Structures are given as C-alpha cells and as structure tokens.
C-alpha cells in the first residue's frame, strides 16, 4: 500500500477531482443535494489522500519526493510528465486540499443556479491547482497553469456579480499576456539547453536548473523578467495588480475564496520554484528592486484599501498589501524571509479566505456590500461579529495568530537584506491594522441604525462550522509554526545556500518509500537523454 502511494499518489491527487467532475454527470441531473454532497465527498477524499502525502514525506530532505516520471510527448522532445513535491509544494498542496472542502461547503447556499456545472468546474480547478504545484516539467506546469484559467473564467463570468464579464475577461487577458511571454522564455530555455547539450531537449526543471544558472547575466535578466512578469501578474504585484479588485469583487464567494486562498499563491510559488532557482544571478541582482516593488505594494494596497467603501473591495486590496509582504520576503533571499513568505501564504489563504466567506455571508443576507449600510452589527449578529473579529486579528497579524509569525519573519528577513526597505515594510503592518480595525469598527460597533440590519439572522450551523474551522486554524498557525515550517526548512535552506554560493540549484528526485530507491527516475531521465540523436 505504501509502495503504491509513494509511486502514484500525486497523479492520484490530480485524478481524483477530475474523475469526480466527470462522475457528477452520471448522477441524476435533478438531485442537486446529492451532487453537492458528492462533490464535497470527493474533496474530502482528496484531503485524506493528501494526508498520506504528509505522512510519507521526510522533512530532512530537500529533494523532490513522491516523484513520478512518465512519458508524455515522444521521448525526443524531452517533454515528460514529471511530478514531485518538496517542502514548498507540499504545504501549498495541503492548503489547496484543505480549503477546497470548506469552500464547497460554503456553496450550499451561495450557488443556486447551474449547480452541477459549478461543482464540476470547481473540481476541475482543484485538479489544475494541485497539478500546478506538483509539476516539475515546464510544459506540464504551463498546461496546468493555463488550464486553471478556464474554470475560473466561467466561475466569475457565469456566477459572478453585476460587472462580471468585464472582470473575468480582464482576469484572463492579464494572466494570458504574462504566461505567453513566460512560454517564450520557456522555449528559449528549452532551446538553449539543447544547444549546450548536443541537441538533447528537455523541459525537466532539475536538468534546466543546471543549464540556466550558467547563462550570462544579461540573458538571465531577460528570462527572469519574462517569468517574473507572468508570476507578478498572478500574485498580483504592484503595478500589474489591477485585475484583482475587479475579479474579487465580481467573483462568487467561492471563487473569491479560492482566488485569494490558492490562486494568488501560484504566483508566489512560481517565483520560488522557477524565477529564483532557474536564474539565481538575476534574482540576486534584482532582489532590491523586487523587494521595493513588494513594499510599494504593501503601502499602496493598504492605503487604497483604507479608502474603499465596498467591503469586498477593501479585502481585495488588503490582499495586494499582504502579497506585497510575501514578495518582499521571497526576494529577501534568506531563509527567514522565504520561510516567512511561505508561512504568510498559508496564513493569508486562511484569514483572507475567512474574510471573503464572511463577506459572502453578509451579502447573502443583505445583498449589499456597501460599508455605509452597516453599523452595530455586533448586537444583531454576535457570532458573525465574533468570527469576523478573529479573521481580522489573523489578517492584521496579532501576536498569537499565524500572521504574526509570518510577518515577523518576513520583516526580519527583509531587514537583513535591506534595512531601509525593512523599515518601510514595517509601516505596512501599522497601516494594515488601521484599515482592518476601521472596517470592524464601522461594521460592528456604534449604533444599529439601519432597520434592515436589526432582523438579520446570525450565522447558521454550517457557516459556523466553516468559520469555526478557519478560526481555529488562524490561532493554531500561531503556535504551530515550527511543525509546519520544518517540512519546508530543508528546501528553503538549500535554496538559500545555493544563492549564496552562486552555483546552480542542484536537486534530485527521491523516493523514500519505493523499493527502487532514489536512482530510478534519474536513470530514466538519463536513459531518455542518451536516446537522443
């Protein structure tokens, strides 16, 4: 059984949701309840399967584990189906599989039209997200990265708000623009590798890490720029963030949650998996610029968020600010900054996910998100206020919540890299507290003037369960930072060492639980390369 899981669990994690999406169409079309339950069950199975991943993962190693190497396109193209996880992707895969059931649970009330299509798209999206985090082949990664657009496009465009078409088209165009330039860069890397290796093509990143690190700096800078632009759009970093508020505001609640919770992390993940280790010299050269852009994002996002009158838009801009922290932490290029960034990705997923759910709850009841419509909600909806305050505390990084650990580590890392920018970034923490607490103040305290708010129903059991789980997670992350981060420690340490030494990022496949040992996949890589003319 262990053997089986070690060899195929990642493919299984991609296939389960896809299969679930297909099976939805076998179920009776009229019975929406059954379809919802089925989709939820699929997501739970996926979650359980991902626990096996954690159990079998060995935290001491920085290598790719559970790796699978299969032929996909003909061997001579060097494009293969390669998946594997290291500490970095493990945590993000877990974030995906853990958030998905909660989001599906939230759609029981929020999605009412074309339920089956929504669920199928959502499961397809989950498969694409997991696929993005585990693929170790440039083209495979690209396929998942782009395939993710299709369900998101339909989710925003079909189930979204008033201005949904504009938002969804903008979202897709922004992303595709970046990713096509990234594809050109991939093609270049692919070609350069073949040139340097006597015509042996490959898109296996383990091989490419060695090739690209040796490229001259100006080439590295161009390629780094192309990749980073694509990821920056996804993060989104200032100044390419403008699609995010639109997409968030117009998306249905489930879409917003998954967008904030997981999709944005695909950008920061891309930076850590591709931009930096592929082009280390360029990353070091550009680190201050990137930190500066991150810091601008922090402050800019916070200031804009402060001025918002639409609650959802406010939280969307707070995402820009929070992701600014993550980017700054990543480009501090030291272990503290990068672990903080990774941790902050998880925290942001949980706390902002909770905030979007909370906005969804109030929107379902009042059909408005205007801040001026609310006030004094704490007396009419005490439990709602309770959960909202907890999510806010997580978002403003109160000590005791996960956000505190993450932001503290990021600030520490950035300060070590560049003290001026570190100080500026720290100001973002204060700004973050201002606009979030101001939001809470306006919504929940003060007199309950609006008569419509007086008879509002408090959160129901299902909502309380979702929000309760997330609230527990916010505090749990505050104390459990060591056990979570130790999974990624080896990977991040290795990355930092590589950057310091100025050499290529050397990493390999490893299969602990497999009888074949760690050599098997590499042998096949080598064998496939020997076959080249």
């Amino acid at each position: 059984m262990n053997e089986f899981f070690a060899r195929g669990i990642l493919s299984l994690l991609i296939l389960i949701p896809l299969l679930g999406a297909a099976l939805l169409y076998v179920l009776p079309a009229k019975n929406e309840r059954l379809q919802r339950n089925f989709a939820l069950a699929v997501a739970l199975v996926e979650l359980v399967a991902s626990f096996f991943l954690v159990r079998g993962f060995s935290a001491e190693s920085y290598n790719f584990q559970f790796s699978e190497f299969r032929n996909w396109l003909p061997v001579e193209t060097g494009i293969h189906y390669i998946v594997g996880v290291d500490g970095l992707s493990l945590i993000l895969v877990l974030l995906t599989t853990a958030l998905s059931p909660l989001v599906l649970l939230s759609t029981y009330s929020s999605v009412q039209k074309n339920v089956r299509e929504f669920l199928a798209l959502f499961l397809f999206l989950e498969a694409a997200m997991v696929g993005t985090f585990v693929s170790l082949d440039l083209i495979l990664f690209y396929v998942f990265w782009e395939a993710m657009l299709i369900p998101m496009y339909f989710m925003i465009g079909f189930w979204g708000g008033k201005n949904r078409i504009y938002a969804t088209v903008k979202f897709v165009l922004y992303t595709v623009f970046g990713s096509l330039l990234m594809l050109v860069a991939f093609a270049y890397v692919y070609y350069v590798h073949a040139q340097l290796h006597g015509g042996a093509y490959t898109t296996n990143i383990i091989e490419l890490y060695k090739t690209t690190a040796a490229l001259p700096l100006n080439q590295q800078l161009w390629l780094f720029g192309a990749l980073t632009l694509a990821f920056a759009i996804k993060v989104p970093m200032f100044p390419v963030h403008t699609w995010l508020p639109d997409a968030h505001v117009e998306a249905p609640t489930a879409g917003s949650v998954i967008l904030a919770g997981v999709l944005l992390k695909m950008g920061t993940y891309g930076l850590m998996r591709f931009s930096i280790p592929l082009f280390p010299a360029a990353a070091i050269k550009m680190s201050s610029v990137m930190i500066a852009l991150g810091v601008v994002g922090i402050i800019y996002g916070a200031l804009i968020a402060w001025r918002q009158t639409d609650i959802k838009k406010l939280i969307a801009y707070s995402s820009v600010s929070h992701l600014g922290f993550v980017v700054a932490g990543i480009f501090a290029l030291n272990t503290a900054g990068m672990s903080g960034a990774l941790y902050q990705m998880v925290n942001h997923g949980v706390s902002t996910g909770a905030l979007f759910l909370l906005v969804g709850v109030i929107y379902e009841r009042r059909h408005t998100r205007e801040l001026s419509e609310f006030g004094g909600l704490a007396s009419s909806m005490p439990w709602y206020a309770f959960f909202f305050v907890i999510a806010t505390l997580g978002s403003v990084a109160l000590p005791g919540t996960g956000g505190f650990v993450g932001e503290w580590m990021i600030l520490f890392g950035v300060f070590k890299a560049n003290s001026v920018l570190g100080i500026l970034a720290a100001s973002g923490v204060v700004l973050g507290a201002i606009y979030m607490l101001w939001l809470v103040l306006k919504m929940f305290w003060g007199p309950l003037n609006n008569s419509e708010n007086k008879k509002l129903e408090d959160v129901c059991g299902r909502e309380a369960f979702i929000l309760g789980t997330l609230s527990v997670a916010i505090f749990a992350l505050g104390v459990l930072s060591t056990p979570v981060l130790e999974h990624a420690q080896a990977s991040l340490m290795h990355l930092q060492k590589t950057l310091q030494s100025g050499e290529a990022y050397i990493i390999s496949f490893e299969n602990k639980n497999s009888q074949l040992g760690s050599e098997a996949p590499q042998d096949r890589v080598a064998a496939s390369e020997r076959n080249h003319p």
Partner: protein
Amino acid sequence: MIEKNTLLQTRLAEILPSATFYLHAFPILIFLIAAMSALLLGVFRSDPDKPSFTAYGLSVAACLGGVVSIAINHVAPVAYLGSGFLSDALTQFGMLAVILGTLATLSLASCTNVGRNLLRAELVALLLTASAGLMILLSAGEFLTFFVGLELTSIPLYILVGFQRQSERGLEAAIKYFLLGAVAAAFILLGMAFIYLNTGSLQWSDLSRLNLDRNHPFAIAGALLFASGIAFKLALAPFHMWAPDVYQGANSVLTGYMAGMVKLGVVFALIRILSAGLRDSNGYLMWIFGIIAALSIIVGSLFGLVQKSVRRLLAYSSVANAGFFALAFAVLAYNPGSEISRQALIAYTFIYAILTLGSFGVLAWLEEGVEEDLDRKSLDGLGKKNPFAAFAFTIFLIGLAGIPPVAGFFGKLLILNSAVSGGLIGLAIILAMFSTISLYYYLSLITAMWFHAPSSHTAEGHLDVTVNRRMHWTIGMLAAASLVIGIVGPRWAIKLDQRTARQIAPTAQIGVP
C-alpha cells in the same frame, strides 16, 4: 521487329511508373475516379438540383478506400514520375488528413439543408477533385506537379464558392476569389519561371542550386513572387483581403474545408520546398516570411476585434493562424534542417484543420434557417438554447486561442519553439503579445454564448432529431479529437519520419532534365 518491340517496351518502362505507383497513389486515383463517376451520375439524374445520395455514398466509399489503402501501404520513400510524385511518410500522413477532412466535410454537409445543396452530383465531383488536387499538391516533388495540384484544388473551389447562384454574397465572393486567385496563380507561375531560369530545373531537389544573392536579382524576384502567391493561397497579410469576403460568402461547411484543408495541402508542399536545402545564406526568404508572419499576426489579431460577423471574425483568426505557419516557414527557410519547424508545421496544420472544420461546422449548424450570416449577437445565450453546440464551439475557440488542454496549445508551443530555435525571438514575442489580443475576440464569443441571456435572434440550429444526432456525432468527434490531441500531445507529428521530406532522389530520369 522484335528489336523494335523491346525498344518500345524499355522506353515505355522508363516513362510509365512501376506498378507500385498505382498502389501508392491509390487515394488520388480513387478520388479522381469517384469524381468522374459522380459527374456521370449527375447526367442521368432527372432533377440535377436535388442532392444525390448516390454520389454522397460513392464519395464516402472513396474516402474509406483511400484510408484502407493508406493503412495497408508499406511506407518506403520512393519517387515516381521523375520526382512528380513522392511517396513517403509525409505524403501518407497528408493524404490521410485530406481524406479525413473530406469525410468530415461531406458528413457536415449532409447534416444541414444549406449544406445538402453541396451534395448535388456535380458539386460532390468538384469537392472530390479539389481533394485529389490537394493530395497531388502535398506529394509533389517538383514545381509542375505542384502547380497542377494547386490549380486542380483552386478551380473547383472557385466554382464551389459561387454555387449558390441566388446568393449575391456568394457570387461576389466567387468572383473575388477567382480573380485574385488567378493573379496569385500567375505570380506563382512567374516565380517558378524565374527560379527555373536560375537553377535550370523544376525539381525541388535542385533548389539548392538557387542563388539567392544580390548578383542574381531574378532568383530573388522569383522567390518573392512565389512567396507572394503562396501567401495569397494561405491568406497571409498583406494578401489576405479576399479571406473575410470569401469566408462570409461561401457555404460554411465549404469555408471550413477551404480554411483548413487547403492550408494543410499548401503548407505540406512548402515544407518540402523549404526543406530541400535552399541556400538562403543572406536570409532573404527568412525576412520575407518573417515580415509576412508579423504582419499577418498583427492584422489578424487587430482586425478581428472589430468584426461583427462571426465568419469574418474567424477569417481574421485564420489570417493570424496562417501567420504562425509563416513564422515556421521563416525558420525553415533559413535552416532547412530544422526538425522542430517541420514538426510544428505538420502538427499545427493538422490541429488547425480540425479546429476550423469544427468551428465552421458549428456555424453551419447554427445558420440553419437563418438568412443572414451570424453576427456576435446571434450567439447570445447559445449555452442555454443549444448547450452541445455551445460547448463544442467553446472547445474549438479555446483551441484556436491556444489555451491548454485543447490541441491548439501544442501547435502554438511547437511554433514558438521553432521560432526561438531559429533565433526569431522578436517574432516570438510578437506572437505572444498579439495572441493575447486575439484571445479577446475568442473570449467575446465564448462570453456571448455562456454569459449573455438568449434573445429573439439567438440562433438555435434546431433541426429534426435524426439530423441533429448526425451533427452531434460529427462535431463531437472533432471536439473529442482536439481534446485528446491536447492532452496526449501531437505524438504522430513529432514521430513522423520527415527526413524523407528533405529529399528523395528520383528513380528514373525522363527525357531531358
């Protein structure tokens, strides 16, 4: 006397191809025979304006016969008739693609009322002749056969475009297509003549003798003229003007055939020409094709944005896509050994043919019962009214936009790889940027289908149940093909043994060179 006889026999044996020729060229021959028989059938019909299902059955049988003969044929690169007919993996694959495309066209035509007009005996004969011409085109190894094939394809298409005599738009399209096509044919002929002037041979294997440099202006003029003619046939900018009008005027099913299959035939022929080892050391041809490619991508992406008619929009999309082909031509012209470019061209033409046949098939379905051609508004809310058509159309559009997991992605990927391997990074970036722009109009169609509410002029494509089922099958097959290729990748195109595309020495020299 006996001596004379043997002399005649040896002479005949020199001129006539060996028996295996008939085996290898079987698909062409059977298509021509079927075309003739269909013509004859038409003579004996009492009402020639009615669709002839005998002719239809005959042509389907010819297609099946062709497929079987390709399946059992042994692929060994041989040249017949000088190098007039090359039989190799590329030919076999191209023929298979043409036959399948013809089959899909016939099947789509048989589904709709407008399309059934295409099944009149003489029109079926024309379609079969055009397909035979395409097969001659893609198996040619020298200029004359190439030209014969090209004209054998073009002339029936001029007629087919205008066959709806009562439709003004159709007639306009036919005239436009014919006049411009004739000019393009003249360009190609003149280009061939100039090239012959320089190399003294019509065989592509001698193209390596072509001196493309400043001291030989006629060689350059020849190459330029030839490239312009080809650009016209492929609807490459700035020779694309006819495409929107013709695509709009012709029967949708036929438009799919024109856009998809003709491109396939011409591209395959060009693969052979460019692989033959032109000495383009100054990069003239690369520049010509590079500029044409950039222009087509830009024009196709920008002009498509403002089109109201769906067919005109798809016409501009086909201009942009032809630009991708030209990009690979540019690389192949400079580096005839570029395997990546050949793979890219083979894969993308095939994928593109599937996507175009599919999308125009859907349009033909939707146009049923609508007098005018469809504009964007008539797609509003199609997802509600005819979810299957909307779903299939969405797949084809996503494919044309090049987003995985639909096949078009691999086409675009291979083209990009080819461009980068040829050092044309600037063009690759142009391709990337303008693909984003063209994505906007693909998205606007998808948006209209799924996110807009249906209105009174939404097309439905309601037909009777049995016909609908046939339409479902044909379009479903095309959509499934584009998804499957999009997931497993165009393996066949990459594995295809294209070494033979570069050169096959003629087995026998006939007459004077």
